[in-house]
């Protein structure tokens, strides 16, 4: 009786382990996140981040994070890759915001006739 119980527990543990392994392996590739990150980076470049050092810095971070996420996807580490893609998107969006802020500042100062450059 005791042997049977132990065997049953062993089997259950094994099944749980397999299920967990399966769960990890079955985390699908974060395709949507990848597309979002790529599109945010593209938008940042289109806004003109290269003209603003701060925007450029965040865009560069986003690109590095995107590249790293792609490597992780290749290695099957989709969950970690997905979170890196969050970061990439957030950095690209901040790059856009920072660049737009700089552009608005210049436009306002020009309109006020107080360009200090």
């Amino acid at each position, binding site marked *: 009786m005791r042997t049977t119980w132990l065997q049953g527990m062993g089997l259950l543990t094994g099944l749980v382990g397999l299920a967990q392994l399966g769960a990890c392996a079955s985390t699908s590739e974060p395709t949507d996140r990848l597309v979002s990150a790529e599109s945010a980076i593209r938008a940042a470049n289109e806004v003109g981040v290269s003209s603003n050092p701060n925007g450029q810095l965040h865009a560069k971070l986003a690109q590095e994070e995107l590249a790293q996420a792609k490597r992780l996807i290749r290695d099957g580490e989709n969950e*970690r890759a997905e*979170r*890196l893609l*969050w*970061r990439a998107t*957030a*950095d690209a*969006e*901040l790059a856009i*915001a*920072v660049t*737009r*802020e700089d552009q*608005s*500042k210049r*436009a*306002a100062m020009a*309109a*006020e*006739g107080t360009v200090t450059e």
Partner: protein
Amino acid sequence: MTEHTCKPSAIRTTVLVCASALAFGACASVPPPKELVSARTEYTRGEQGMARTLNPAGLHDARVALDKAEAAYTDDPSSQRTADLAYLALRRAQRAEVEAQTADWQQRQRRAKDNALHAQAKAAGEARTELADTKQELAAERDARAAAESRTRTVLAELTAAHAAAVKEEPRGIVVTLSGSVLFASGKAALLPSAESSLGEVARAVGAEQDKALLVEGHTDSRGSEATNQTLAKARADAVAAYLITHGVPAERVTTAGIGSSRPVADNSSAEGRAENRRVEIVIQTREAR
């Protein structure tokens, strides 16, 4: 065996207490990741800055992201997921503040443009008023000139009607021709007393054209030497000019010329023709006197 005698509810309670103790211990001992510390600071800054009024939606997103990061920290303080969520919260908070600043610059730009437009409209209004004033002045001037010309023509028409002078229009201006025999004795340059009534009318007529230059020309017939004729012609023109000046015509408007016999208007071979050639012409010039 004793472990088999444990009640399931007792086991559950024990496990929960242990888990809570572990979680509490973890929270108390694992410091928040630097991303979370920065996210909290950045969010507080946004909440106290422009984002509160200029970008409340962005600030709300940042709050939601920060709450998720805090929850993850409570669940699993040292996990990479917690750090990642805190990173997102940090970026959201930074973005909220930057977007608020952008909105502020845009407001400033709009205000500056509005002010510029306002100033432009004001300047345009002033220019329009000035233009209207100028037009009014020009119109008044034109009317005054037309009235003066009308007065002149009336007087000149009266002169013509009274046979005191002949009036004609030429490209150089209105020419009032006075007969030499009416004005002067033969060979003399002094005005006859009888000339004064005619000249008085002429002075009134040409005096009405306040801003026109007057040229008084003396003409003779062809008898006698050219030099004598020219001297006589000039003296007669000067006499007429002097009369006009003493009767109200400003001296700076008047110039004189002794033409002599060089510009006859009739045949010098007959007595009538010579009489016509002996004359004084007063030209009311088209140019304005300086």
